C-alpha cells in the first residue's frame, strides 16, 4: 500500500520589536500576546501529547529575531511583569462582573489561564521557551528549519549575491546558536523564490526548501506528480510545494474555520471595549488601546463565548481536515499508480492561538486523531527525501506566498522609497567588507554593528508594516534608524573616528546577533 504523508510546517516569526520604555506598550504587546496565545500553548500541547504517549511530528522554523527576543532576559522579565498586570486586571474583572455569572466565569477561566501562563513561563520552562522547543526537536517530534537572518525578501537582492549569502549565513549561525543542530531545510522568508537562489542556498548544506504551489506548477517542466511529491532544482536542492488548498480553505472560507460562530472572537478584547479608566496599565501615554487577553465573545454577534462548545467544534474540524486530506491523497495516489504521495501544509505560527484561539486545540486533535488512523501519516520533509537523487529536476518559477504571488506587498507606492536606501547600504557593506577584510579592535566592532544594521534594514517587516498601515510610522522610523546607524559607521570609517559611547549604546539597544561576523558579506571565492 502506498504511503500518504501529511507534513505540517509552522513558521514562527516576530519582527525585531521590543522596547523597555512603556511608550511602546502597543508594539511590545504583539510579542507578549504571541507568547501567551501561541508559544506557551504550543509547548503545553506538545507536553500533553508526550505525557499521553501520542506520537507527533511537525516542522517548525523560528526566525532569528524571534529567537533573539525570546532569549533576551530583559524581555523575559518584562513579559512576567506584563502577566502580573494581566492577572491584576482579571481580578478587577471578576469583581466587576460579580452579578453576571457567564461573564464572571469566563473572566475567572481567563484569569486562571494568565496565572498558569506565569507559572509555566517562570517555573515549568524557566523563562527559556527555546530550550523546550529544542528538546522536542532532539526527540524527533519537531524538524527544525533555518531561515534568513531578518525575514528578508531574498529575490530583491539576487543581483547582489553577497547580500543573500550574508542573510543565509547569519540565519544559519543563529540557528546553530539557539538550537545547536545542522538544519537540512531552509525556510525562504515569504516563500520568495527566484531562479538562482538555489545556487546560493545549497552550498550552506541545506537539502531542501518549500515553495508556493505556483512556483512549482508554473515551473519548467511541469512536475509530473504535481504538488504531491518533492522535485529538485538543477543543483539537487529539493523543493516541496506548499499545498495552497489548505491556505485557501482557511482564508477563502474563514467562516467555516477560525471565524465560525462558536469560536472566540479575537477582536473583541476588553482592552478595546471597556472605559479607559478600567484599563490602567494597558494604555500608553496617548491612551492607545491594546489587547489585554480578556475576550468574552464568540464570533456569533453578541453571543457569549462557550469554551466547551468551541473545543468540541475544534475537534470536529480536525476530523474534517484529516478526512479531506486523506481522501485527496488517496485520489492522487490512485492517479499515480499507487505511488507514495505527500501534502505539505504550511501555517504561520500566529494562526494558532492569536488569529484562531482554538487553533492549538485543533492542532492537538489533528495529532491525536492522525495517530489513530492508517490512511494518512504525519511526517517531516527530510523523511520524504530518501531517494532525493531520483526526484524530477525542474526550474521553479518566480513566486512568493505574499502579495498576489510576488513582491507586491514589499514594493508598492507606500514603501518603495525604502528600496534605494537599503540597497545602497547593502552595496556599501559589501564594499566595506572587501576594503577591511581582516580588521580587528574598534574597527571590527563598528563593522559588526554596520552588518547588523544592514541586515535589520533588509527585513521585509518594515515595508510590510508600512503597506498594511500596521504601526507604519513606527516601522518607517525603525527603518530610518537602521539605515542611519549603518551610515554613521560608514562615515566614521571614512573619517577614521567613531564615538565609542554611541557604538556601545547601539550594541546594547540592538542585541540581536551578538556573535555576528561582518565578513558574512564577503565574496565567497
Amino acid at each position: 500500500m502506498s504511503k500518504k504523508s501529511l507534513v505540517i510546517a509552522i513558521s514562527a516569526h516576530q519582527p525585531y520589536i521590543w522596547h523597555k520604555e512603556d511608550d511602546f506598550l502597543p508594539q511590545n504587546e504583539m510579542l507578549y500576546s504571541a507568547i501567551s496565545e501561541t508559544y506557551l500553548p504550543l509547548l503545553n500541547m506538545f507536553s500533553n501529547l508526550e505525557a499521553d504517549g501520542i506520537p507527533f511530528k511537525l516542522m517548525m522554523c523560528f526566525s532569528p529575531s524571534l529567537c533573539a527576543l525570546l532569549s533576551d532576559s530583559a524581555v523575559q522579565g518584562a513579559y512576567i511583569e506584563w502577566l502580573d498586570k494581566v492577572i491584576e486586571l482579571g481580578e478587577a474583572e471578576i469583581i466587576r462582573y460579580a452579578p453576571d455569572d457567564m461573564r464572571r466565569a469566563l473572566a475567572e477561566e481567563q484569569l486562571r489561564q494568565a496565572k498558569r501562563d506565569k507559572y509555566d513561563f517562570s517555573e515549568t520552562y524557566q523563562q527559556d521557551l527555546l530550550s523546550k522547543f529544542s528538546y522536542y526537536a532532539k526527540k524527533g517530534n519537531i524538524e527544525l528549519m533555518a531561515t534568513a537572518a531578518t525575514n528578508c525578501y531574498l529575490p530583491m537582492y539576487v543581483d547582489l549575491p553577497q547580500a543573500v549569502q550574508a542573510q543565509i549565513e547569519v540565519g544559519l549561525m543563529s540557528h546553530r546558536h539557539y538550537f545547536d543542530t545542522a538544519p537540512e531545510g531552509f525556510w525562504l522568508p515569504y516563500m520568495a523564490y527566484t531562479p538562482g537562489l538555489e545556487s546560493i542556498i545549497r552550498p550552506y548544506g541545506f537539502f531542501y526548501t518549500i515553495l508556493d504551489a505556483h512556483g512549482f506548477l508554473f515551473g519548467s517542466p511541469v512536475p509530473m506528480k504535481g504538488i504531491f511529491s518533492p522535485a529538485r532544482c538543477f543543483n539537487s536542492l529539493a523543493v516541496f510545494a506548499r499545498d495552497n488548498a489548505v491556505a485557501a480553505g482557511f482564508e477563502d472560507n474563514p467562516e467555516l474555520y477560525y471565524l465560525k460562530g462558536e469560536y472566540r472572537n479575537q477582536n473583541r478584547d476588553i482592552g478595546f471595549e471597556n472605559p479607559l479608566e478600567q484599563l490602567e496599565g494597558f494604555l500608553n501615554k496617548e491612551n492607545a488601546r491594546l489587547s489585554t487577553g480578556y475576550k468574552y465573545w464568540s464570533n456569533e454577534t453578541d453571543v457569549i463565548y462557550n469554551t466547551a462548545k468551541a473545543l468540541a467544534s475544534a475537534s470536529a474540524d480536525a476530523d474534517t481536515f484529516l478526512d479531506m486530506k486523506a481522501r485527496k491523497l488517496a485520489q492522487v495516489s490512485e492517479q499515480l499508480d499507487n505511488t507514495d504521495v505527500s501534502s505539505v501544509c504550511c501555517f504561520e505560527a500566529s494562526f494558532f492561538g492569536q488569529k484562531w484561539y482554538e487553533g492549538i486545540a485543533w492542532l492537538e486533535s489533528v495529532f491525536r486523531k492522525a495517530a489513530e488512523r492508517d490512511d494518512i501519516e504525519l511526517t517531516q520533509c527530510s523523511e520524504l527525501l530518501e531517494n532525493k537523487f531520483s526526484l524530477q529536476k525542474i526550474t521553479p518559477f518566480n513566486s512568493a506566498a505574499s502579495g498576489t504571488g510576488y513582491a507586491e506587498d514589499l514594493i508598492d507606492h507606500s514603501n518603495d522609497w525604502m528600496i534605494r536606501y537599503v540597497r545602497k547600504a547593502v552595496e556599501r557593506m559589501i564594499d566595506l567588507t572587501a576594503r577591511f577584510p581582516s580588521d580587528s579592535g574598534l574597527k571590527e566592532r563598528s563593522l559588526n554593528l554596520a552588518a547588523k544594521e544592514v541586515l535589520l534594514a533588509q527585513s521585509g517587516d518594515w515595508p510590510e508594516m508600512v503597506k498594511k498601515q500596521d504601526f507604519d510610522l513606527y516601522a518607517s522610523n525603525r527603518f530610518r534608524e537602521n539605515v542611519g546607524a549603518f551610515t554613521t559607521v560608514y562615515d566614521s570609517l571614512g573619517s577614521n573616528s567613531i564615538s565609542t559611547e554611541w557604538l556601545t549604546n547601539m550594541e546594547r539597544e540592538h542585541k540581536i546577533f551578538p556573535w555576528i561576523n561582518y565578513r558574512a558579506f564577503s565574496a565567497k571565492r
Partner: protein
Amino acid sequence: MENMTLSRQYLETLTSADLIELADEYGIDIPEGLSRRFVIGELLEAIDEPNYSTEDDLIAVNGNVQTPIVLPKTYNETQITVILRNPAWAFVYWDLNESDYRDVIQTKSFSSFMLRVLYFSSLEDDSLTEVYDIPVRYEDSDRYILLSQAETAVRIDFAAEFKNHEPRILARSNKILIPKGCPELTSRSLSEKKAPIIELSGFSELCRSHYMNHRQSFS
C-alpha cells in the same frame, strides 16, 4: 466627534464600537472579523485627502514621537537600478550626480531626461530586439515599468535627450531576465483540460487567481 482631528493617535483611543460607528459615518463597509488595526487603517485611508489646517502654527502633541532620521535625497551618484516587483512589472530607481546634472542642463540643446527600455534576446547577447523611450522629469527618481512578456531580457538606461544630437546615456542598469513559464492567461487557456494530477494540484484555481490579479499584465 465631527470636529475632532481624526489622527491615528486619536482613533487608537476609541472603543471598537466607536470605530465601527465612525466607519459607518464614512460609508466604509467593515466585514465581520476584521481586526481593529485594519478598521483604523481603513478610516485613515478614507480621511487621507489633504485637509490642511488654516491655523498659524502646528498643534503640539505630547508623547513619544521620535524625530525621524533624515535620509539623503540623493547619494550624488549617477546610477540606475531595476528590480522585479513581479514577472510583469519592474521597479526602476535612479540617482544623478550633481556635476553630471550641471553638464547636461548647461548644454544648450538639452531638452529632457528619459528612460530607454532595451530588450535583448538573452542575458549574454547584446543584440537588441526592441527599444523605446519614456520621458521623465528631473524631479522624478523612480518609476514602475510594464515588461513585454514576449521579450527575454531587459536593461534600462537613464539618458538625457538633446534637440540636435543623439541622447547621452548617463547610467545603465543591470540586465535582468524576464521570467518565463507562467501559463498563458486567456479565457481559452483557462478552460483547457489539464492532466488530472495537475488539476488535483489546484492548477486551475491558481491560473484563475493569477488571471484575476494579473490579467492586464501577463498578456
